[in-house]
């Protein structure tokens, strides 16, 4: 039997979750205020996932950057690969929030989306 504690990152409550588990699939959580906590811990033990936010360069815009984010989590160890993809993108103003820049990044159920409007420079 193994014991670990986690701080859930799903919402600002940041529950401290104590988990008891073994390699045969036994798994018991304590301290989470909602079921999302249990799912988070299970993910952390098997395949940790994260979302990520950054920005991309915009040419001819009122701002030099448009913020972007993944709308779903990807494996934690692919975060820096995602950053590489993000850095390679260059957009032209105007840019609309919600635009999908990369659909299903690396085949995961996660799109890279623009999160702000950038109008053309006046």
């Amino acid at each position: 039997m193994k014991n670990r504690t986690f701080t859930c990152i799903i919402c600002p409550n940041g529950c401290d979750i104590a988990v008891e588990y073994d390699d045969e699939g036994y798994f018991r959580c304590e301290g989470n205020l909602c079921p999302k906590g249990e799912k988070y811990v299970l993910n952390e033990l098997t395949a940790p996932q994260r979302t990520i936010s950054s920005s991309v360069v915009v040419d001819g815009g009122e701002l030099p950057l448009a913020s972007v984010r993944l709308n779903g989590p990807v494996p934690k160890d692919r975060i820096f690969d995602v950053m590489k993809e993000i850095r390679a993108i260059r957009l032209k103003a105007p840019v609309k929030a919600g635009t999908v820049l990369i659909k299903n990044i690396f085949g995961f159920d996660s799109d890279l989306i623009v999160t702000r409007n950038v109008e053309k420079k006046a």
Partner: protein
Amino acid sequence: MDVYRKGAWMMITEHRNVIIIGGGPAGLAAACALYDKGVKDILILEREPRLGGILNQCIHDGFGLSRFGETLSGPEYAGRFIEAVRQRKIDYITECTVINLDNNKCVTAAAQDGLKKYQADAVILTMGCRERPRGGLAIPGDRPSGVFTAGVAQSYMNLHNTMVGKKAVILGSGDIGMIMARRLTLEGAKVEAVFEILPYPSGLPRNIEQCLNDYGIPLYLSHTVTRINGKARLSSVTVSEVGRDMKPIKGTEKEWPCDTLILSVGLIPENELSLQAGVVLDGRTKGAIVDENGMTSVPGIFAAGNVLHVHDLVDFVSLEAEKLAEGVSAYLQDAGEGNQKTCAIDIQTDETIGYTVPQKVSGKKDVTVSFRPKFPSQNRVFEVYQGDRLLTRKTVRKAIPAVMLHIDIPAEKFVSEETVRVVSHEE
């Protein structure tokens, strides 16, 4: 001479029902809620070129979980409120800095097309907050470049596409500092460590997890920067352990080479205008003393959001600003029920609680009191008394200063005009 005549001499005072100072999350939410209550003659004055306030540079996600049930970035969260303001055709002026506010609700502002003067029936203060700068800490040492507050670094990187450094040390475990630790790491900088003078973190636990632990950035509690070293550019900081008295312990100094120091050492409500108007501030929050309607000590001047007290979640800023709309509209159409005066019953706290907002109530309405515990504790019982009578209580499994708490007091619970006290003890 001509300009003088047109600009100042012949300046016409425009009348407005409500002037909102600041077009960030609080101002936008207050404007929409007021509009929906039937107060349509509203003008938002915003200093920056665009609405949205600080959310524009908060590109990380996690906003809106309680409000919209989904996680949004700052610009998206702001975008929804900006859209709501535009749909309602609420007036706003950007690049317009309010330079004076008097206790008669007369607002003077410097706009792109000159000086403006407004006479408002009610003024809503939603100016947000500022970061505590290096000067506020009095760290000894040199004055090289490379020392930034977290929000300034965030603005450089997220709005202006300018990297701030390659090797960073972060002082203070505030949320923005931790979020910048992650941001810097993602953009290729090395973040050596985060130092916190207190024996516990000042930011949210989830940020310690996802911004520091995820990237192997160590957090040192009870440590602080005691010297800044460098000629033109920062070359290192000296870090010392601090004792229980928060004073550096001699002999524990260690030098950390770095080219960038990020300060995340607290936010202070921006209340210069409030003071001009004679609004009485609370020494604990550094924001106005307000009643349950959000009204300050100056009748007709209201406040909400980070200008009132620094929030950890924007979702609560929006709620607070929306709630204030009720009080503002009651004030504007006063039916002689005492809505023109600030409420009289004080809310006090014991030494375990940092502050409450509001600080005053009428005893006639349901009230939600926001407060922060002064130190971390487990299974803490928070109680509200009036005299010897217990009005309500609430047990919190994990109470930490980083997380603002709320307690509801139903109107019928109030029994007298006596002072209300919020206290806490172990379960």
